[in-house]
């Protein structure tokens, strides 16, 4: 039987490293992709993923409501990305101990795809960077990572209404920016409040 996040988090809070490792394995992909969507670099996203979980371990005494472990991790990731230099400096020694990646035999095709992701994301981040930072956070969490308004509000520690309004403003601004840059009408990803996190 698979243990709930809240149970694993409670065990982690008591110092159970195994429970915390399970949480890592469960949410590593989501946080890894979120970090990539913020920095546009798969390799950096991998390091940021480690930092997010090391930071989460450091704050393991935090009481979390049921079902909010992942949104909370998104919140940590948002802060880690925002203070990237400081975070990397803090965990520089730990990151230096990460085992080196072994070359994979059939990695070439995926490497091309990943390089393409980075190239396309650079364009998107270029536009996104013109938005206020708070709108960027909401947009990436809700529109790209699929968090519900409520979870995004929990991650960012703001009211749900604020998330809604920021997302609406971000969408409008992005469409306008995209139009001004000559790409025609933009279909900004639409997010339902019930979107799965």
């Amino acid at each position: 039987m698979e243990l709930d996040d809240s149970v694993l988090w409670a065990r982690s809070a008591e110092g159970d490293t195994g429970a915390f490792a399970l949480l890592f394995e469960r949410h590593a992909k989501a946080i890894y992709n979120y970090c990539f969507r913020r920095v546009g670099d798969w390799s950096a996203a991998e390091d940021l993923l480690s930092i997010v979980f090391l930071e989460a371990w450091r704050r393991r005494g935090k009481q979390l409501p049921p079902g909010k472990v992942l949104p909370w991790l998104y919140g940590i990731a948002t802060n880690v990305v925002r203070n990237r230099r400081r975070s990397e400096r803090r965990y520089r020694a730990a990151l230096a101990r990460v085992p080196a990646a072994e070359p994979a035999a059939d990695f070439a095709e995926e490497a091309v795809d990943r390089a393409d992701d980075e190239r396309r994301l650079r364009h998107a981040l270029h536009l996104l960077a013109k938005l206020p930072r708070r709108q960027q956070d909401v947009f990436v969490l809700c529109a790209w990572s699929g968090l519900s308004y409520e979870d995004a509000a929990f991650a960012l520690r703001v009211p749900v209404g604020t998330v809604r309004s920021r997302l609406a403003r971000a969408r409008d601004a992005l469409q306008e920016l995209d139009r001004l840059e000559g790409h025609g009408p933009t279909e900004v990803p639409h997010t339902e409040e019930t979107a799965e996190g």
Partner: protein
Amino acid sequence: MSSEFWIPPSRDLPSGRTAARAQHLRAEIAQGPRAGTGRKRLAAAAALVVVVAAALLATPAFGLRDRIVNLFAAEQPERQRPPQLIKRLFENMFDARPNESTGVVADKARVAIRLAIPGYGHQTLWVAPTRAGGYCSNVGCNRTRSTPFRVQMQIAGPTSTNSSPQPGSSNQHVFILGDTSIPKARGIAIQFEDGSFERTPLVWVSKPIDAGFFLYVLPKSHWKPGKRPVAVVAEDTQGQRLAGDAQVGSWLRDAQRSGLAPPPKEFNRLWLIVPFAAALLAAAALLAWRRLRC
């Protein structure tokens, strides 16, 4: 959908990296927090700050110590029964006019300002009302408020208010104190020979005294010629001059002529030449000796 706003694809970590990162995470959290370089740097920076602060405070030439003492030592005026000694002090005061009593109500004496000065004790400015509607203080009596602004300078010895300062000793304290009954007065500025000035607060004592009092510890950096006080000025809230007293400069100069409050000795920069010259001589001697050996 525009090419700019497609939803970036969700990808797994490269093959084997999830396991490697998980293993790394386990290893990191299992060994607990390490003493990071950040903490070491922070500790080193804190130690450096402490050393620099101590050096600045310990160096009299900077005059910081006096300022910091002033900053933290000012205490709120307190209401307490005046000690017998203070009552006697007030009762024995005389009015400027001969054979006329001050009419001081010594029982109602109270503390206007009290400063704690390390290595000295407390310097307290006592005030008491007079029956004629005026007041008396350590500065003297202003029985009928005929003098709107009064300034006095006191030089005290090393350990107590009662000990006499030893001429030539640097372990002395110079106080500039006084009072004003000008209702608009809100602060006191002490002006110095070099054109700079410092402000000291005016503590307003309520009725029946209804006057402002000040007590300023003159930093040793202002005992030096060229930096000594030249005037004490009462100011309003806008910093406008309401009244002034220029006698303070001559008082300090006179006191210094008699050996009190001696100016701090300047560090003679010529002494810096000595080690330099010694090193130069040693180098020349070494060179000469080598040549002789060859």
